[in-house]
């Protein structure tokens, strides 16, 4: 049973995303053994109206389902104060797309609230390989040094970083047990085994970045990794359950 922390819904200007309906997306994920996941709005990266994106997402995905809608928030849009009072546990941020630093004073206020209310912060480090960006829309990744620093400042804030490269994991995860990363972009020979050898598996969660990437790619990365059942289960679903506690 696999829980996927990295699913998007919506439109993206640079890639036709593959599923025509929510039902088809869910059907494909379920067929691949992904029983649930965290779904965020793709267009929230560019939209000036996050409330609109979040509403659209919540119409398509219900919180009582296993595919949980994750609202996008920004320190530059005060809607987060109202959202934090709700039952919602996960919140996504696109710092690079929304042009702020996770070390800014404004973000510190938001981080403090999330920490106090035991919410989980999802940081979208990148959406695409920067080398393939449109020349007129070059969005740098969120520096993992900054996220590591954020994790040190707010030691009880649970953070999940999406779409980090393998080469970024050491900087990101060192000495911050509250910071976690998904596997969608991390790639080297025998990725999962190499991650296990170098960083352990406690801070690693399954993410596929569907529908931007083929779900099967992340699935095979994990399933063909040859790690023990215990490590497999931790990455597939146990770690995210632990983060939620």
């Amino acid at each position, binding site marked *: 049973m696999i829980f996927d922390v990295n699913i998007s819904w919506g439109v993206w200007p640079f890639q036709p995303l593959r599923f025509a309906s929510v039902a088809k997306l869910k059907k494909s994920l379920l067929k691949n053994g992904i029983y649930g996941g965290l779904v965020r709005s793709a267009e929230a990266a560019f939209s000036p109206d996050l409330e609109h994106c979040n509403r659209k997402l919540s119409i398509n995905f219900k919180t009582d389902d296993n595919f949980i809608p994750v609202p996008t928030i920004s320190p530059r849009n005060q809607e987060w104060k109202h959202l934090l009072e709700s039952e919602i546990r996960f919140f996504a941020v696109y710092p690079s797309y929304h042009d702020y630093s996770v070390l800014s004073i404004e973000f510190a206020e938001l981080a403090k609230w999330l920490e106090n209310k035991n919410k989980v912060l999802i940081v979208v480090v990148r959406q695409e390989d920067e*080398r*393939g960006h449109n020349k007129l829309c070059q969005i740098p990744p969120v520096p993992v040094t900054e996220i590591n620093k954020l994790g040190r400042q707010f030691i009880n804030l649970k953070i999940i970083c999406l779409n980090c490269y393998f080469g970024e994991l050491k900087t990101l995860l060192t000495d911050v047990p509250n910071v976690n990363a998904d596997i969608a972009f991390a790639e080297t020979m*025998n990725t999962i085994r190499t991650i296990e050898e170098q960083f352990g598996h406690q801070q690693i969660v399954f993410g596929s970045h569907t529908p931007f990437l083929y779900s099967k790619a992340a699935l095979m990365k994990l399933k*063909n990794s040859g790690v023990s059942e215990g490590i497999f289960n931790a990455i597939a679903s146990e770690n995210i359950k632990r983060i939620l506690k």
Partner: protein
Amino acid sequence: MIIDIHTHNTLSETDSLISTAKYNNVDKIVLLGNVLRFGYYPVEEQVHEINNDTIKTVKKYPDTCYGFCFLNPANGVDFTLAELERCVNKYRFRGVKLEVSVNCRDKRLHPIMKKLSELNLPLLHHCWYKTVNKCPDESTPSDIVYLARRFPTVKIIMAHLAGCGYLGVDDVAEYPNVYIDTSGGQPVASLVEYAVKRLGASRVVFGSDAPYRDISCQLGRIYGADLNEEEKEKIFYANAKELLKI
């Protein structure tokens, strides 16, 4: 049966490359050489050494590995052609690999292309459309088109589908001597289907770019694509079999 047309034999990792390929049910792999071992512009002795490493691995794993001769077109023509003949005649290498030493529009590629045409062997060329981190002489799909038009009898495998993107696929669509390998970059969804739609399944070849990439993840790109079994069989096996003449 699965053939991986794009791997690199970095000395320290060769044994684990082979065992990982086997573990993932990849039966045969093409070794393109440790092409960046001496940087972007290797001199003749370095090119020779890189090919010697490939020869060593092919000798060690003759049932699994095929070699491609790595060259830098900026080196002397006599050396380059002699090196190519050495690798092909003595060690049965199946093609030539060019990386980023010289842009493929450069006429210094011509002797190599003429020789490949004569030997009826393919060229596998690195290729990418990059917005950032571009190497000075790196080739793009539009550069590959230039080469493909000039040498229509040589089969050119344009590397890195995800790096070439939709635009790169469109660029080469009209040139039947250009193939595309699926290696490298992220497993961007829908792109394999797009390449098959525009080029036909007979011009798309599976490659992983291991050990820089994870073979299982790269396989997932094909298994996850919305293609029929016949198309997948061509990508995984039949096309490479024909290109490599095995």
